């Protein structure tokens, strides 16, 4: 069992190294600016919640979190609604242009967001959606929908078609079969897809920042405000950073049992 011992030591070291930068951010968020810039301290000497108080008492700060969560939630819902039937079609049927369509979808996951910045701005401005949550949610569909179709298709391929046929013999209509029989069977696939959609939408900033100005501004864009005339307010910046990690932690906690399976995108 010495082998396991080495492995445990190895993974412990890796995780410690992984968490050190995060600890440094956490450490900083409890310090005053004077202490941060005054020199290196391994833990806060004058422990303070002031940095967090700034964020929780100022609407222009905490609205950033609400905005981010709003467009991420809308995006996850839209992504799942359109990707589920499409993934079913790809997993079950051969149809005109299916392979080309699939690659074309994936190719949008590959489009560098920098390419689309300006056209997106113009498109959403021209239809009056600029600076709304729905605009960011729709823009994020560009990379989330193809990925969702890809992941879900893998899971759906794992369900034998005999289930579909049996349901039809039992007199189920397609919508009834799809919702009552099929979706429960790929529950974990849906959970994982939702997690991925959440993750990629939550961490993206380039498009979100370009498509908003005031009303739907994401937290990432608001964080740049800490850079003021008197320099950077490091403490508040660190506190804001720590708070952006928490929603992700909650989501991964809820889907942890599905994640191992789903990270293979249902392909193994």
């Amino acid at each position: 069992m010495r082998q396991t011992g080495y492995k445990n030591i190895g993974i412990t070291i890796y995780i410690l190294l992984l968490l050190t930068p995060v600890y440094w951010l956490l450490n900083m968020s409890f310090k005053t600016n004077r202490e941060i810039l005054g020199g290196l301290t391994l833990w806060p000497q004058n422990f303070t919640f002031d940095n967090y108080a700034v964020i929780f008492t100022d609407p222009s700060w905490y609205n950033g979190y609400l905005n981010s969560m709003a467009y991420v939630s809308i995006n996850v819902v839209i992504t799942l609604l359109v990707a589920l039937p499409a993934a079913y079609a790809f997993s079950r049927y051969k149809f005109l242009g299916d392979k080309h369509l699939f690659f074309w979808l994936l190719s949008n996951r590959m489009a560098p967001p920098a390419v689309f910045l300006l056209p997106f701005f113009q498109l959403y401005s021209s239809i009056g959606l600029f600076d709304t949550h729905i605009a960011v949610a729709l823009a994020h569909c560009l990379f989330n929908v193809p990925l969702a179709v890809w992941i879900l298709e893998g899971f759906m391929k794992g369900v034998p078609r005999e289930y579909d046929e049996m349901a039809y013999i039992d007199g189920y209509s397609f919508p009834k079969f799809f919702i009552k029989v099929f979706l429960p069977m790929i529950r974990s696939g849906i959970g994982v897809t939702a997690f991925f959609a959440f993750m990629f939408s939550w961490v993206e900033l380039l498009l979100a920042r370009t498509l908003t100005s005031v009303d739907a501004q994401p937290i990432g864009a608001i964080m740049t405000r800490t850079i003021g005339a008197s320099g950077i307010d490091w403490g508040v910046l660190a506190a804001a950073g720590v708070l952006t990690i928490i929603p992700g932690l909650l989501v991964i906690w809820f889907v942890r049992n599905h994640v191992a399976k789903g990270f293979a995108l249902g392909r193994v």
Partner: protein
Amino acid sequence: MDKIPDNRAWWLVLPVFLLVAFSALVPLMTVVNYSVQDIFGPGQAYYVGTEWFKEVLTDQRLQDSLIRQFAFSGAVLLIQIPLGIGVALMMPKSGIKGSLCLILVAIPLLIPWNVVGTIWQIFARGDIGLFGWAVNQAGIDYNYTGDTVDAWLTVLLMDVWHWTPLVALLCYSGLRAIPEAFYQAAEIDRASKWAVFRYIQLPRLKSVLIIAVLLRFMDSFMIYIEPFVLTGGGPGSSTTFLSQTLTTMAIGQFDLGRAAAFSLIYFLIVLLISWLFFTAITHADKEK
């Protein structure tokens, strides 16, 4: 599983098609439109044909950032893929320890990209950052805002920190999918640790690894926010990658025609390389 030929399946794909077409085709056409015109202002645009493309292809600045980009993506893949496999092999197989490892390892993936940049911006500083301070204490002269090599290594280290977890988690799930019987057979044959890895684990990881390589290639090729926050592309332009060059051109200098032509070439490069990977995936699927 054999698929049934049925063109009515298009009805199921239609919502996705319309949604993605709205988000992709309209902007793409706009880019194509820009790329063949010289735009001075509203209503003042002149058709210039392939002029921009010629100019972009011979632009020294763009070639430089393309080379930097390839070097960066190559280094990312060379480090992250083996490291990710190693981490996956070390992770506990199941139980509460397994779940805990999974969550802890996934943390860097859930941090917004600008926050990742901010974390490293502080963490690598020589005066108030633990990493920069430790390196300097170790007697190595390190300053990522002033030294080109240091800046490069810091951006690379940040990306390794940020994205190796994705490779590790993909491989972890691939390893979980190997039936226990394979290992038992290997034990009966008295196979060495290396043989188990080389002939059982690695071949079984193939399809997951292709996905990992594909995702890592695409995302490292599009990297923008993290180096922008960390180094701002400097010192000089040593860490200015393609996305940043493009964004500066399109939004900073408002050089639309040139930026659009550049965008299309950029997209084509990503598309071409990804197509090669994609063909490899479908090929691997067929072999199974």
